């Protein structure tokens, strides 16, 4: 008989054993993921204050680690909201602790990105992480800590407090990790560039291990409104969420439970729904059996009278900022951006924003450059599987006078309280029909505008050429005919040239 041992493992242990799912697959991917996670936390930290983010990232070489990897020290500084001192150890030393458990458009989703990076650093280098943070109060706190992987607890090695004379606010994270920077370099640089594209109000500075400085300067002070927290929409709930809500609810009957815990459910809708699903108004939600919870979930999805989710909680980039970002990073000759009206899939609101850029510094590659973003972060891997790419490839571009050999860059941004990623790696968007339709309609709109631009430019070109021809040849006709006719004075052709111009205008 085979003996099996069951043991409970901590969350930190779980991620330690399964670091692949968080993107730390190999040394090159790991260093990219670490930079990305920390930068995104910093962006969120600044934006929650409506402050234009100012982020400084430095990677320095510490020593060789293996054949294909080295030890690097990663330092990320931001001007964000800062972490209150009592939360610092847990926020950076305890996996699955964090502020990202409400429904809100967020860059990360699991609340483990930053910690995963630190955990990965600790696993590969056995060195503590150093966190310095201040909320702008009179003190700055510095912690040196490690993660007790088996117990998922922070181990504080050192703690210092100093007076915050310059009233600094923000967070600095510094730790060592193993990685392969030179393999990851193109992706990291691309990541910064694209991040700058959808965050044109952010200042990003990156110093790489060779000491090269990459600076992405903000071009605007405008920022999108920060996303608001929202309640879950009934169409989007699952049993797990229901159970969690039941656990924490202070309400003693179903009517109030529905009214106060769900998005777009008011008194009337709640009553109608309870009648529709034959659940008593006064039933205490805490008394629901497991079977009843499952049934409740099914009925919630079946009830047709819930209003669709309100997209007010979403924070798209906005047409103006997207245009500015594309102009800043791609320097095209022409750009058209379009924001679709909010739409929903499975109870989750989402907004699609698309941009098309033409010419200028965009290279001719024989195919379009495609930039994909989700909740204002660039998606760099698995391009071929992404819904936007599928839509772009299936579109009949010739209708818009567009051919693949043109210098064209297409950007697609989806923002949602729940981005429909297809995998945990969060690198590409699944082809949900609702999302697909919105992407397609958005692209058609900007493609039409590009077509108008191309047609107009063609027209202007033709006119310019025409004028050029007249002003090249008419003087010659005048000169030769005057000589042929034996005239001293050349005929006056100004009037003719003017008439050509008038005609062309």
């Amino acid at each position, binding site marked *: 008989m085979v003996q099996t041992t069951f043991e409970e493992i901590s969350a930190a242990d779980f991620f330690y054993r399964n670091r692949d799912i968080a993107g730390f697959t190999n040394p090159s991917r790991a260093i990219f993921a670490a930079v990305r996670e920390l930068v995104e936390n910093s962006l969120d930290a600044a934006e929650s204050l409506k402050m234009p983010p100012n982020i400084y990232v430095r990677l320095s070489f510490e020593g060789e680690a293996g054949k294909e990897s080295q030890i690097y020290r990663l330092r990320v500084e931001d001007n964000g909201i800062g972490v209150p001192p009592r939360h610092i150890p847990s926020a950076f030393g305890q996996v699955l602790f964090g502020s990202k458990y409400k429904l809100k458009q967020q860059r990360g989703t699991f609340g483990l990105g930053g910690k995963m990076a630190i955990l990965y650093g600790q696993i590969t280098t056995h060195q503590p992480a150093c966190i310095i943070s201040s909320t702008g109060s009179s003190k700055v706190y510095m912690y040196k800590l490690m993660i007790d992987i088996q117990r998922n607890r922070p181990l504080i090695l050192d703690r210092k407090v100093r007076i915050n004379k310059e009233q600094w606010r923000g967070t600095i994270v510094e730790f060592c990790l193993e990685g392969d920077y030179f393999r990851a370099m193109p992706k990291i640089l691309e990541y910064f560039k694209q991040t700058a594209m959808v965050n044109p109000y952010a200042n990003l500075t990156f110093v790489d291990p060779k000491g090269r400085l990459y600076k992405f300067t903000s071009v605007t002070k405008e920022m999108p409104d920060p996303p608001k927290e929202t309640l879950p929409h009934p169409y989007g709930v699952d049993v797990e969420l229901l159970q969690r809500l039941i656990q924490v609810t202070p309400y003693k009957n179903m009517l109030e439970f529905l009214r106060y815990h769900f998005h777009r459910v008011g008194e009337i809708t709640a009553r109608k729904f309870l009648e529709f699903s034959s659940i008593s108004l006064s039933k205490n939600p805490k008394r629901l059996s497991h079977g009843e919870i499952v049934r409740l979930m099914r009925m919630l999805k079946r009830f047709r009278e819930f209003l669709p989710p309100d997209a007010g909680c979403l924070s798209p980039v906005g047409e103006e900022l997207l245009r500015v970002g594309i102009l800043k990073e791609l320097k095209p000759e022409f750009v058209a951006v379009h924001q679709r009206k909010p739409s929903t899939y499975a109870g989750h609101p989402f907004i699609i924003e698309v941009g098309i850029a033409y010419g200028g510094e965009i290279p001719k590659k024989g195919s379009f450059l495609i930039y994909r973003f989700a909740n204002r972060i660039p998606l760099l891997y698995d391009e071929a599987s992404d819904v936007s790419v599928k839509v772009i490839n299936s579109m009949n571009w010739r209708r818009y006078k567009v051919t693949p050999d043109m210098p064209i860059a297409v950007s697609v941004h989806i923002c949602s309280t729940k981005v429909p990623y297809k995998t945990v790696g969060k690198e590409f968007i699944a082809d949900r029909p609702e999302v697909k339709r919105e992407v397609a309609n958005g692209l058609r709109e900007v493609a039409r505008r590009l077509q108008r631009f191309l047609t107009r430019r063609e027209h202007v070109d033709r006119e310019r050429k*025409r004028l050029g*021809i*007249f002003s090249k*040849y*008419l003087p*010659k*006709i*005048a000169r*030769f*005919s*005057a*000589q*042929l*006719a*034996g*005239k001293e004075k050349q*005929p*006056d*052709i100004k*009037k*003719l040239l003017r008439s050509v111009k008038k005609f062309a205008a």
Partner: protein
Amino acid sequence: MPRRRYKSSIIERRKEVLTGLENLGVRIYEQLDRGYFPSIEMPSRSTENIYYDPQVRQFILGDKRVRRSARNIRHIRPFTQLVWTAFFSHELASQRKTSTLRDVYYSAQAYEMSFKDQQESNNIITDLETVLGSSREDFNIFPEERSAVFGDLTIEYTVPGYEGRTLNLTSHPDGVMIGPALTSSEFVKTTADKVIAIEKGGLFTRFIEENVHKKFSAILVLTAGQAPRATRHFVRRLNRELNLPVYIFTDGDPWGMHIAMVMISGSANAAHLRELATPDAKWSGVWATDIVNYKLPTDPLDEVDVKRLYELQRDPRYKDPLWQREIKMFLKIRRKAEQEAFSRYGLTYIVDKYLPAKLEETK
């Protein structure tokens, strides 16, 4: 200085051309000066507008006319080129300098007038010919091809540096090249009573060696294949100004026939021009019937020869019974013979026997 015996056309023609060019300049100048886009009208040279005129016995252009306007974006470039070419020709003609087609192509670049290629500049020159109704040789633009003349004819040069100098065309045993200087010279005197045009250089030399010019009182002209326009015009002048009958000897095949026909009736390409054809000239051989009668050594006709014969059969210039008969005979015997074929009877046979017989036959 010998007294001129013949009415010359040279001075008159040159004057005509110069005034024609100047008038063209004035016309364009005035249109421009009045604030109009200048335009030029000329007969269309498209194939639908080329007709055979039995009266003048050559191809002529019909009534269809085309307008080249500087208003039109597609016309303005060729229009400018045309004006430049007119200007350049006027310079050439008034300074009495000559130029070749190739020369014109390169000269244009000095005036920042670019021609895409030689073909484009040739076309523009043809346009100018059409507008003025005179051929490019009249405004001193000559093709590269050269042919020759030999015989007792004294000419007087009109080219700068040679004005008034005379030359007897027997003075050089290889013949005298029919170039710009000869083309523009005056005829002074001759003892000849006929012109014999020959397709091939070898036979031309043989005729000189055998004193054909003396024996037959003939001026010999080498066409060197298809006769250049300068040569055609020269032969016409011999015919018109000196009243000499013209006999043409070519190879006995459709291509030889056509060399003769172009000298007699002109080509479709030159339908916009007069004074190139010599309608009274005779094709004296080698005929298909000669091949049979003189039992000449022959080659079989190949496919293109036969195809060409059928084309000629339908050509309006060939409607005369003699030509139709010879075409039919070629098609019947399916053979062709070169002029040199007579050598099978000895080198002088062609001069002693064939030539007198044919001259008599086609008189």
